């Protein structure tokens, strides 16, 4: 947050452009039947693009890239805990038909 964290407007605008391209891509990708090639590919593509966009925002707009280690730890933890909740819960539902 102090002087050495200043990110130049050029980077901001580049990131913004990238985000716009990604938004366009995700809309177009949804209009194509990707599930035809691989079941669930549509949602996978949508989530990969969304995660990429979110990472750009965290790393550059929010200065995550330039933050102290403890801040980066907090970012990692929140994603990790979200993953625990999603994966451990879904593991129950997904494995039910196996028996």
């Amino acid at each position, binding site marked *: *947050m*102090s*002087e050495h*964290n*200043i*990110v*130049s*407007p050029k980077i*901001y*605008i580049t*990131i*913004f452009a990238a*985000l*716009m391209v990604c*938004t366009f891509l*995700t*809309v177009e990708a*949804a*209009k*194509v*039947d990707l*599930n035809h090639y691989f079941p669930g590919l*549509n*949602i996978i593509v*949508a*989530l990969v*693009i*969304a995660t990429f*966009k*979110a990472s750009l*925002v*965290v790393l*550059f*707009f*929010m200065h995550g890239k330039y*933050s*102290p280690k*403890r*801040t980066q730890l*907090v*970012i990692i*933890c*929140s*994603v990790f*805990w*979200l993953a625990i*909740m*999603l994966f451990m*819960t*879904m593991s129950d*539902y997904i494995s039910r038909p196996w028996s």
Partner: protein
Amino acid sequence: MHRTGELFGQFETMEQQRESASFGMWVFLSTEVLFFGGMFMTYTLNRSTYPDVFGEASRSINLTLGAVNTVVLIASSLTMAMSVWASQVGKKQLLTIFLIATLILGSVFLGIKGIEYHEKFVEHHVPGLNFSFEPGASVATNAHAQLFFSLYFAMTGLHALHMIVGAGLLIWLIRQSMRGRFTPEYSTPVDLIGLYWHFVDIVWIFLFPLLYLIDRH
């Protein structure tokens, strides 16, 4: 945070105070991730249980408005990031301009959201208010579509609530900024509210494909 750059009693140095504030905001945002996370979990399970009805219901919401809103919100994130930069380099007028731009873009987002909600209201797609999905839809389809719209309103509603809080914070920031309170040495409120605003943007980055873009082919 009413007086410019005051050192609060519990801190030893300004540096410590700045770092604590910023770190505190990050910790708060990690709480928010899990807060929205509970809804994402509910969404994930229900979508995997009723993929077809969710697709059908998703196609009934307005993609154009959703996409425009995505652009608007990301643009507001850009102007917010620019405000942080302006405050760091001490361009006080530019700071005010960028903050106002952010507020305007945020309000446009909320306005468009309002139009969408109105559309849904007209179509009887608001759960709890004589919901009916499509004429002739079976009881089950109706119930499952209602699940989709319950989640749609819960998730976008909570998101919009965060936007409204953010807009309130921005108004406060703009007033402070117009009084020239922020300097390169003291820009903590701009930084913190910036972090919050970007977080709200990130939530939308996930909401958009999950709610608007199911099986659009």
